């Protein structure tokens, strides 16, 4: 069969959002691939220049709606660095807790999307069932299930409700058991292994060259986790080991995310144990001048905010670095030589979120 280009997107079941993957196929084999993005560009960096520092949290929530808290948190960290603001101890721990809750919820959303990609719709419902519990916890502490608007410059919006730790531990104990069910459906299934092992392999060097970060990079054997390397908040005070796999294929990326959910559960429990008393928020200045540059370990990789203030009450310039933006352009590397059916196995394992990619 002659080679032909196929558009997978902008409206296609594979895309999980609004973007286009053009693939060049020779029969069923992928010869080349080319992501086309920008369908969801909303001009975030420009809009943020006309809103006050604190009000921008509403926007950063909407960068990725399955991972709102982590994104707002990264923005708040950058602003705090610019303002030279000290965050109370309790707020740091609350941030760790909510970040990790959000990370588990985000990874469960990824798991829910990965199942149908491979033709396993049951996994969607199961993963969303578990995600519901974490959304309940997030709702308990922040009052909302999506776009929580929870982190504040200088802390968090409100303290944890009474018995929050008790509910967290209960959910986590339940979730640990349920995660084994998920592993039965996924990795203990021979068919799942046939679809993912050895598919979409990328080497550690290539991944670093192309700017791949997050679970996708850790799946290549690189122990690069900004919670460890460039720690922020209460992460240096909590001992944990980031999940790492070595194969660099779709299965390794799946494995890293599954392990990361366990790590996050451990982190939440440890943070709850150490949660100090005290204020949860310090008052930020209204106007600020200077530069703030913070990167955090987002659910999908390295999130970066670069905020410049010129003495006004709103930022002069904001730069957002989205991990998905870099990850997705390494996808053609992973795809070449694989079959058409592997497109979903690869793109699903990369975990695309179009909102943060197109900004």
């Amino acid at each position, binding site marked *: 069969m002659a080679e032909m280009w196929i558009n997978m997107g902008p409206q*296609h*079941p594979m895309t999980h959002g609004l973007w286009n993957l053009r693939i060049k196929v020779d029969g*069923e084999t992928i010869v080349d691939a080319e992501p086309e993005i920008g369908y969801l560009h909303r001009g975030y960096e420009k809009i943020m220049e006309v809103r006050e520092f604190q009000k921008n949290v509403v926007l950063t929530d909407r960068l990725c709606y399955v991972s709102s808290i982590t994104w707002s948190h990264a923005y708040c960290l950058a602003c705090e660095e610019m303002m030279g603001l000290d965050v109370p101890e309790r707020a740091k721990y609350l941030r760790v807790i909510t970040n990790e809750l959000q990370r588990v919820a985000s990874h469960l959303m990824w798991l829910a999307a990965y*199942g149908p990609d*491979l033709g396993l719709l*049951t996994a*969607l419902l*199961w993963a969303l069932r578990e995600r519901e519990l974490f959304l309940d916890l997030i709702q308990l502490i922040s009052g909302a299930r999506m776009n929580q608007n929870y982190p504040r410059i200088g802390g968090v919006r409100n303290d944890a409700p009474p018995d929050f730790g008790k509910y967290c531990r209960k959910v986590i104990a339940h979730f640990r058991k349920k995660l084994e069910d998920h592993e039965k459906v996924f990795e203990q299934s021979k068919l799942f292994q046939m*679809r993912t092992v050895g598919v979409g392999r990328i080497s550690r060097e290539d991944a670093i060259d192309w700017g791949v970060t997050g679970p996708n990079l850790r799946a290549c054997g690189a122990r690069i986790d900004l919670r460890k390397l460039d720690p922020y908040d209460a992460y240096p005070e909590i001992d944990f080991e980031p999940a790492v796999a070595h194969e660099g294929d779709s299965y390794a990326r799946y494995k890293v995310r599954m392990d990361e959910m366990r790590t996050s559960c451990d982190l939440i429990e440890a943070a709850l144990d150490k949660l100090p008393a005290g204020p949860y928020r310090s008052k930020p200045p209204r106007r600020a001048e200077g530069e703030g540059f913070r990167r955090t370990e987002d659910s999908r990789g390295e999130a970066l905010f670069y905020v410049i203030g010129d003495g006004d009450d709103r930022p002069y310039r904001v730069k957002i670095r989205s991990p998905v933006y870099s990850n997705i352009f390494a996808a053609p590397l992973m795809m070449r030589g694989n079959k058409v*059916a592997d497109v979903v196995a690869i793109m699903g394992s990369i975990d695309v979120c179009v909102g943060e990619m197109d900004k």
Partner: protein
Amino acid sequence: MSGHLVDLWGWSHALASFILWLLSLPLELVNWISFQATGGPAPGVPGLIDFVTGEGLTAFVAVIIAVNILLLWATAFHLLIIMWIERKMYSRLQDRRGIMIGLGSAEILRNTLGRIPLIGRPFRRPSHLGTGFLQTVADGVKLFQKEVITPATADKWMFHAAPVMIAASTLMLFVAIPWSDGFWLMGAYESRVVNGAPAVVPVNPWGILVVLAAFSIAPLGILIAGWASNNKYTLLGGMRAAAQLMSYEIPMLLSIIALVIYAGTLDPFELVRNQTAPLTYGLGPYGSLTVPWVQNWYILNPILWIAFLVFFITVIAEAERIPFDIPEAEAELVEGWTTEYSGMRFGIVFGFKWLRAIAGAALIVILFFGGWSGPVFMTLDAPNLAASGSTYSIPILFQEFWFTVKVYLIFIVFVWIGWSVPRVRIDQILNIGWKSLVPLSVLSILLAALARGTGWF
């Protein structure tokens, strides 16, 4: 132990005779007028009456009626029920209730019976608390209402011919498969000795072969559908379907050959009759071991287990169900070869896939699970008032009931498998077919031949 409820040929023949008798009445009237006027019959009319009410035309009309009954049996009965079973089953696997619109959801019940004080309360209930059976009906009605869109660049004749081809070949399956001792269209009654007693039984010496031939027509329709839509997704889907279905035909036929060597017949009626006998294991020179109270289903014979395994897997592949639903593969190929179809054209190509699954399950039941033989054929005996001493036997648990129950149980296993595993890739599916299933089916032929040759099993 007879006990079939439906006598398809008898019913349709009687109906055909009645219709043709009604048609002949005007001719009789003409004849009568002629007698009154001239004292003799109208020229040519008695011959015409003989032709209309004769056996030739009656049989022709009866076949048409029987095929239509089978069409209703397939779509109005089986299709609705298995769609409901599938949707309820996978919803339960997914920890939810699934479709819940039933008769109780009807607005009219709440507005009439629901208004009655005291006893009306059960009818004033939320609309989504039913069995969900009406949802499948609603989906069918919705598809009928939708516009049929033909893509501008499609090959129009082939595009519209493909669903007809698929639907016709699937219906051919339903015509070729016997559903009980009386519910069949292909075959003939013959006098045979059954279990030591002479009896008139249906026979169809090439029945299984016809079913398999009907199974292998659909890939052609799918390929045409994929090509004629003139769309890259449908083309890939059609090519995948052709590759998959053709490569799975071979192990399917080979595994049936194993069974045929063991059973010694291709006649579905004969196969089922064999399986109603008591379970017997041949012990070579030492005679045989008979287990009372257990029917001789071929699944109980270890020598045929490999053949059963291969046949079961190939039926799942032939029905294009997960894990072998790569021609459809909604994640990467949108909707595969059915992408460009809309309205009831889509309903046909999508719904008849379920019917092929049911036909496959029926074939599994006939070949390995004893067909329509059941543990009990309950009849309700009523005295025949016309002739004292004799009774009418009205079947309660009849052959069609047992057959349908078994077919649905097999189908539930399909659903169970389909919703707990991901789908495999096209190269992997062909690898499984050619490298695993074909050798296994050849091995099962060898085993069956050994068993026949040595008298063991």
